């Protein structure tokens, strides 16, 4: 097995362990809300959505954090263990792609289980009766957005690791702006200096292409910034 596949496998399984906390946590929260949510004023448990849309925001934050941790937790350790920056980079990138596909796949399975329960039992845990094409759309956007969040988190800490904290702040600024742009392309209403931008609902292909463009740009930039990065001691 080539070295970066080995690193990718190790990083993927390590991060998947972290992801299990997200998944278990989201299951607990969702069913907690299903059972006790009505105690919260203004909350309607019948409005609970399926796992994919229920977890889209937490999964973004999770992937942002995993991306943020990818530099400080693994870079020094791996290079110190005799692994090249190149193998670290490809390992990290592939583990992120793997994770971005795995998390929504697990949720998809959970949604399928909910669908079975909804079909054969009187329970409806917030399964939304999506047509398969809508579900596919949700899945694609989910994968792309969380991968983008990972890449942007990784990008921020590379900035801090490679340069000083002032430059790090600049990396955060770039990350926030790109996050807003991506958000706008997926229908979020963005407000900058009191000016609100609402691109409305755009075709999936366009939003996906813009996100892919940002992911590729970050992929290139992150490699350029890490290819000769000085290891912190």
């Amino acid at each position, binding site marked *: 097995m080539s*070295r970066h596949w080995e690193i990718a496998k*190790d990083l993927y399984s390590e991060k998947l362990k972290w992801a299990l906390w997200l998944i278990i946590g989201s299951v607990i929260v969702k069913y907690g809300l299903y059972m006790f949510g009505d105690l919260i004023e203004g909350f309607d448990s019948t409005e609970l959505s399926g796992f994919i849309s229920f977890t889209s925001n937490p999964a973004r934050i999770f992937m942002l954090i995993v991306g943020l941790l990818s530099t400080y937790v693994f870079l020094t*350790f*791996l*290079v*110190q*263990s*005799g*692994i*090249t*920056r*190149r*193998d670290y980079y490809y390992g990290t990138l592939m583990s992120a792609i793997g994770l971005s596909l795995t998390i929504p796949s697990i949720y998809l399975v959970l949604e399928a289980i909910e669908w079975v329960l909804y079909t054969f039992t009187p329970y409806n845990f917030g399964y939304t009766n999506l047509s398969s094409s809508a579900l596919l759309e949700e899945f694609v956007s989910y994968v792309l957005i969380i991968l983008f969040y990972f890449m942007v988190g990784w990008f921020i800490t590379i900035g801090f690791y490679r340069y000083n904290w002032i430059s790090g702040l600049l990396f955060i600024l770039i990350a926030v702006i790109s996050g807003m742009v991506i958000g706008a392309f997926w229908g979020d209403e963005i407000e900058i200096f009191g000016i609100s931008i609402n691109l409305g609902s755009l075709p999936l292909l366009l939003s996906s292409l813009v996100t892919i463009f940002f992911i590729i740009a970050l992929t290139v930039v992150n490699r350029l910034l890490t*290819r*000769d990065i*000085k*290891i912190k*001691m």
Partner: protein
Amino acid sequence: MDMLEVRNVGLTYNDFVAIDDLTFTLEQGKTYGLLGRNGAGKTSILSLIAAFQLQTKGTIKLNKASVFENPESMQKISFVYDQDYSEETEKVKKLLEATKKYRPYFDQEYADYLIKKFKLPLNKPVKNLSKGMQSAFNVTVGLASRSPITIFDESYLGMDVPTREIFYEEILKEQGENPRIIILSTHLVSEMDHLFDEVLVVHKGSLIVKEQYEDLISKGVHITGNENSINKFIQGYKVIHEQKLGGTKSALIYGSLTEQDRELAKKDGLQLNPATLQELFTHLTKEKGDEDE
């Protein structure tokens, strides 16, 4: 045979020259003592060898292949330094296993032996170990990894004397059984000099000495006696330290004494004593203002 070649290597940060044109070769089976004062550039040199950063100029090659970003070379180099473990929640056992995974020459049996010797608690988070124990952990990783190039940069910090003795014994034993290139960077010169086959002294980013330990030691001689006789005797020699007490003077000269001069010294009633590595190091790297301290 493994050979590390450092050729015309320089490292510059903006305008600051951390390392200036270093050239030397290290060979398998030898233990090298890297000495230098604080800020002399020791850690910079070591971090370049370990590919922790890229030199601004020159080449570093292991067996003719460039080290930086070369997977074959990089996995042959272990750099043990005083790491900050304040955030390391992983337990000793787990961290050791994680390291082992990427170290092709790692010897588990030897690691177990070292763990016992250093009395390392396997189930304790590394951050909760004492400073000395963290150093012992680092040394265990470095020794058990059996990397063809193993660098210990002040790896003894916080270790008590008996623990340091274990470390020194193991280095001697390892070089006998599994010879590799070992580089020891240290401030504890007098304590560790018996380990060195060769000594490298760095001063202000330049290599000022690279010699076999025995050859270097034989060059340092204290000559003590009557001030006038000493003054006459030392002419033509490089004097790196002088001391006077009443009419008696002692001079530390650096350079091989001729047989003729040894006879002459005896005849003049001058005392000749060998210098220690620590003395040579101290006076060779002396800077202006040091005398006042």
